[in-house]
């Protein structure tokens, strides 16, 4: 029997609201107020998100972010800094007692990332899980993911790269001193891919069109791989209120962002 999931498509929002809404959904699912939830979203303005354990100043050039109009936010999940620009983002929240939830980090990734892999296959892109938390196509990263377990739930969120601008990405991300920046950028360019590149999509097809196509494919992919049956919905008023509160009080708060 298929698993009933709530499906949310919440459009493009600021970094602090996006992280606030993911946490608000975690709260509502953990309290049994909502079904397990799959959410798709985007970022406006572009943003860089920092892993829970990363040092702000070590990873991000804050002045460059300001100059480029890029927001910076710290996630509640571990993992690395991610530049959120032309991508599709998802989050999935499942109670730990749910048949799709796994107690281990790697097994959770393996189960839940099957939805992304199936979604990419729907687009005609072959890909595979690359532990710990990536998906690669022909050996190149196309999706990065992060997760936590809190309040009796698994929260996993991640990105599917639609287009990538590595030069802009490294204008705001700091590079470990042990690696020359130029060499690193060339390395990354050779190790990262995107939906546009994999499918040789011409420039005449806009990012917005690709975003919609990608979300539609991921929706099918998750349903097929995880045997989901969707209840299409909107965030509840309570979730939106909590998301706004968390955005203002937590994710915009420098004590949270600069805690490391």
């Amino acid at each position, binding site marked *: 029997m298929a698993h009933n999931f709530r499906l949310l498509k919440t459009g493009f929002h600021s970094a602090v609201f996006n992280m606030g809404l993911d946490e608000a959904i975690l709260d509502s699912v953990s309290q049994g107020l909502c079904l397990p939830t799959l959410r798709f979203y985007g970022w406006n303005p572009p943003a860089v998100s920092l892993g*829970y*354990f*990363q040092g702000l100043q070590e990873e991000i050039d804050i002045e460059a972010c300001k100059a480029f109009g890029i927001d910076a936010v710290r996630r509640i999940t571990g*993992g690395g800094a991610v530049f959120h620009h032309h991508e599709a983002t998802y989050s999935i929240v499942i109670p730990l007692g749910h048949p799709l939830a796994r107690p281990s*980090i790697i097994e959770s990734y393996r189960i839940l990332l099957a939805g992304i892999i199936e979604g990419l296959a729907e687009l005609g892109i072959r890909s595979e899980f690359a532990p710990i938390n990536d998906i690669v196509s022909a050996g190149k990263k196309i999706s990065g993911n992060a997760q936590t377990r*809190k309040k009796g739930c698994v929260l996993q969120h991640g990105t599917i790269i639609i287009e990538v601008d590595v030069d802009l990405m490294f204008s705001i991300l700091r590079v*470990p001193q*042990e690696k020359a920046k130029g060499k690193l950028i060339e390395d990354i360019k050779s190790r990262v891919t995107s939906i546009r590149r994999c499918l040789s999509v011409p420039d005449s097809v806009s990012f917005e069109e690709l975003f919609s196509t990608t979300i539609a494919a991921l929706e099918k992919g998750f349903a097929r791989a995880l045997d989901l049956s969707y209840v299409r919905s909107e965030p509840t008023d309570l979730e939106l209120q909590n998301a706004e509160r968390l955005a203002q009080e937590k994710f915009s708060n420098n004590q949270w962002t600069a805690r490391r």
Partner: protein
Amino acid sequence: MKLELIGKPEGCKLLRMTLEVEPPLSLSSRIISLSIRGDFFAIPEEAFDEIQEELCGATIGEFAVCFDRLAQEKALEFEGISSKGLMELIQKELSHGS
């Protein structure tokens, strides 16, 4: 004595460590303060924060054993970081200093 350690030990993500010890750095140095950062995963995250605090007072020689014991006590699960990897960063500094 404050040390800034960085490296990517085998099986780990890029780890950064700020370690304050009673000088000079040796296996018997006591940890005064500790901050471990990086793109690793540790769940529950708050338990990892507690472990960092509770490692203060341990000696460098006790570091790995204490880290593993505290992680077990707090049912901490981690990927991309290990006591062995962290100790490797410290050992590298120890061998540079010797």
